[in-house]
């Protein structure tokens, strides 16, 4: 297990359970770890020595409140969903039968 520590596979369910038990990590840190993003150690050091700065960082606007709708970068989303590959990939999630071409059935709205 120690050997694997360097390149752990991200998103392992068992890891999340373990990380959630570790109450020293904030939820944001838990997620970072779980996603396998590079957790730069120097950032943690920063927080330790510069307590004052850290606090204002925690209170920054995006982090401050609970949201029901996450923030999206709509420009990126537009790009993503104009891409045919992504559209095709998502089509498996939809129950479209043979009626693919039938797009104009709802002109009653305008």
């Amino acid at each position, binding site marked *: 297990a120690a050997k694997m520590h360097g390149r752990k596979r991200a*998103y*392992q*369910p*068992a890891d*999340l*359970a373990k990380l*959630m*038990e570790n*109450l020293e990590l904030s*939820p*944001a840190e*838990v*997620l970072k770890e*779980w*996603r396998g993003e590079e957790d730069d150690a120097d950032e943690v050091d920063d927080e330790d020595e510069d307590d004052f700065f850290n*606090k*204002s960082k925690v*209170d920054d606007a995006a982090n*401050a*409140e*609970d*949201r*029901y*709708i*996450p*923030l*999206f970068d*709509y420009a990126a*989303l*537009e790009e*993503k*969903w104009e891409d045919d590959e*992504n*559209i095709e*990939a*998502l*089509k*498996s*999630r*939809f*129950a*479209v039968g043979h*009626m693919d071409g*039938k*797009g104009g*059935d*709802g002109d009653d*709205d*305008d």
Partner: protein
Amino acid sequence: MADETVQPLLQFEGHRHLTTRLLLSTLTGRPIRISKIRPSSTRPGLTPYETNFIRLLDSVTNGAQIQFSMTGTTLVYRPGLITGSAEGLGAMGGVIRHEIPRECSRRGASWWLIPLALLAPFAKDKLNVVLHGEGCITSSTPAGDISVDSVRTAILPLYKSFGIERNIELRVLKRSCVPAQGKSAGGEVQLVFGHQVRLPKTLHVMNKGRVKKIRGVAYAVGVSGSNNARMIETARGVLNKFVPDTYIFSDVSKAPLISGMGSKSDPNGKTKGAVGFGLSLVAESSTDCIYSADVASPPQGGVTPEDLGKQCAYQLLEKISAGGCVEVTSATTVLLLMAMGSEDVGRVCLGRDVLGTEEVVQLGRDVKVFTGAAWGFRSKGTADAEDEIVVSVVGRGVGNVGRKVA
């Protein structure tokens, strides 16, 4: 209630997840102490909308004790019994009218409604609450609250799978959008929740199915209805590639009138509330999994309906592609109801990016603090479904103390 004073206070820190913690405290009957609420902010302590929510909590429960520290950065809450809208306890004619004043207009009405709906099944009597006032916003807000339309079409139907389905209704009496600085909103919504249960059913949702239809509501408040048509057209333009069965309703209403806010020359006159437009989309799968998306025009304006329609459609696609049977907006509702269920293991399948949000992780921790049972995780079946994770939640098995006999 005598033993309640003996119970130690559960300690929490920070202002995040305040409503879920208050909810868990009320549902489990355990007193809590939340400290360090915005200690270093320029406006320390609880915000007006948070104190207003606690007031609402107080009016649907009986015997709750709430103490604030001088600065409002510490809160001690000892929950009472959830009475619902029982006569004589703040309700008039079976209806609690709760005012949301103007200073609370940073959050949408859904911020009050979603937690309130979670308490309702465990109430002693049926719940009937009208939210009104100058801070009551029915549209979605820039602060990340969904519109009341999405609460009605995406959150309340979830209760059905817990065996809670009768006599639940959310009426939008007056629509309102987000007001600009210093203006009033003036919306009005009524939540009727008439199905109280002893215990919610244990939930097993593993199959997300395929999205078969998309419904939506476009609303224009105090502005031209053509905004609706334009939003609908662009949203359909994006979504028609995926689902032909898309139908978006259009609701055009006048700006709400707020009395007593008139000018100096006419003090009894009425002023108009906030205007704007927005769109709420809901996708439903063949196995009744629901995904929702919400956008609304910002108070400062300057966004075309075409942009909003597109954004909403993309948001919906993004939510659907995140996978899982429950999307992030409704995850709190579903997971909390599961935790309050009978002493049995319920399972729900979540997309890994839904599970991997701060809200859900913190909810898991909080649930463990309150009920002592941690969640279990495992990946779903085969390797190709690796981005989906099955969360098993052990119910608490106590349920509704007001209804020992169901």
